[in-house]
């Protein structure tokens, strides 16, 4: 189960390399639309989230209020967790920010996600920055970026592990659903605050993103050769996962923004900056 390329190089495609290309040099960009807008905006969006995430993860405090537990900190394993939300052996791990222990899974899921890969390869790697715009650095012969190996080598070959992160993400979606239910608990009874609704929306968005994942689409039925032999899996593939997958990009962004917003709302309530409006 080695993840490195086989030692023997297979017979190459018989093609002459080095023919002269038509049109102006590749460094000339002929596109007249604002092709740079999309990589710029999405890149800034991702960057903003990373900055927020780092701040949140290292904050280590103000991540719960009532039974609202910030999704960045769930599940909560450490001694500083509120008792109701403590999942693991409380106090056994110490006082490190609990977010750092759990974020690896949802972050790994998003980092290896096919949609986010497109986004950061375009925005950060500039490979390519936009369609029919040259990979940055590729126009310099012999330059550091003149060669390209895509996802064939370490570390990018690890993108193939997306599926395992999906398994974890599936469990996390369950946990966030539990948290959403918990968000309706107030004291010893049940109620509903604005935060409860925010948590429900959060869970819905997370499920929409998780179930629309390309790996999920493959596992639930896409990997079949004959749908007709597995009608139930086909139904899930066609009626649930494929429609969600068609909007994977949308849910990737909505769930990302909402999870930050949910965390920030908890922070605001926990710090007493705002008061959580109670409906009953």
């Amino acid at each position: 189960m080695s993840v490195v390329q086989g030692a023997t190089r297979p017979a190459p495609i018989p093609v002459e390399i080095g023919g002269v290309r038509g049109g102006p040099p590749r460094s000339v960009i002929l596109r007249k639309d604002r092709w740079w807008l999309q990589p710029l905006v999405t890149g800034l969006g991702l960057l903003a989230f990373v900055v927020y995430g780092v701040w949140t993860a290292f904050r280590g405090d103000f991540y719960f209020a009532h039974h609202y537990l910030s999704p960045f900190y769930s599940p909560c394993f450490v001694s500083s967790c509120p008792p109701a939300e403590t999942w693991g052996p409380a106090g056994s791990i110490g006082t490190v920010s609990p977010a750092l222990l759990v974020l690896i899974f949802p972050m790994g899921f998003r980092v290896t996600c096919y949609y986010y890969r497109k986004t950061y390869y375009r925005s950060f790697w500039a490979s390519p920055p936009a369609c029919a715009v040259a990979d940055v650095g590729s126009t310099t012969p012999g330059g550091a970026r003149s060669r390209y190996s895509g996802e064939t080598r370490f570390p990018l070959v690890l993108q193939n592990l997306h599926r395992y992160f999906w398994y974890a993400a599936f469990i996390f979606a369950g946990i966030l659903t539990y948290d959403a239910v918990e968000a309706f608990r107030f004291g010893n009874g049940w109620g509903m605050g604005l935060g409860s609704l925010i948590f429900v929306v959060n869970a819905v968005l997370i499920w929409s993103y998780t179930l629309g994942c390309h790996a999920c689409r493959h596992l639930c039925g896409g990997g079949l050769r004959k749908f007709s032999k597995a009608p139930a899996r086909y139904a899930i593939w066609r009626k649930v996962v494929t429609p969600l997958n068609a909007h994977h990009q949308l849910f990737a962004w909505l769930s990302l923004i909402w999870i930050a917003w949910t965390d920030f709302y908890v922070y605001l309530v926990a710090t007493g900056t705002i008061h959580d409006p109670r409906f009953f």
Partner: protein
Amino acid sequence: MAIDTASSTSGSPASTETASTGQELRIRLWRGDEHGGDFVEYRLQAQEGEVVLDVVHRIQADQAPDLAVRWNCKAGKCGSCSAEINGRPRLMCMTRMSTLPTDEPITISPMRTFPVMRDLVTDVSFNFEVAKLIPSFTPGPKPPEGYRMQQVDVERGQEFRKCIECFLCQNVCHVIRDHEDNKVHYAGPRFFVRLAELEMHPLDTLDRRAYVRERMGVGYCNITKCCTEVCPEDIHITDNAIIPLKERIVDSRYDPVAWLGRKILGRPSPMSAEQVAAHTGAAAAGQGRAAGSDRDGAGPG
């Protein structure tokens, strides 16, 4: 999200002035060959309801009779007239002039990924070489009552078979567009579509997963989706062909759970690349079937 789709294939900003009948058009056409070339500007009057190919043909008929351009059906069905219009890979016959801004000249240049032959005509033989390396459709034994297939099982393949082989996806793919040396081990989006079609064909019996990884180089694809953006047939190349292929390869190559499952359940191991390579056109030609490529003295001379 809106920010991500705003600059997709649909083209130019709506606010810009676009071509209308009678207006003067300025067309910058790339003229040249392997010795070099440059844009040449042509001016002509816009006519009603034209597409870019019509304008090119009018330039050819009235101003530049030796202008080289490939075309056939003029209805978006054959995929011959691929070029780059204002820097975007498109079919000239399916790009209406009225969608292009006319406040500055419209540039038309040949596809960049393939060596130029002359003007807008490029040498696309790379694609036909790859086609010879595709392990062919290999059905199981035919039952006495003939093959049966269900509509749900053929629909995925039908999407892929819409492909008109315009090679715009091959052209836009940065793996070979910007890194030509990858052509020797990267088949390109058009052929991932073909391979996905075969892997999803309800009657096919080959397992091309190792082949797709080792010989067709699917790992070079970093799913930046430009192939999908330029596809004139709206084939969801990335989502429906390339990613499913990548996931199938994860099954056969990167997933120990699947590996264990195969061992326990006694399922067959994935086929090796060598095994399926025997089913290609290149292998058939190599068997001496068609020795026509020997160019020495076949004729009486």
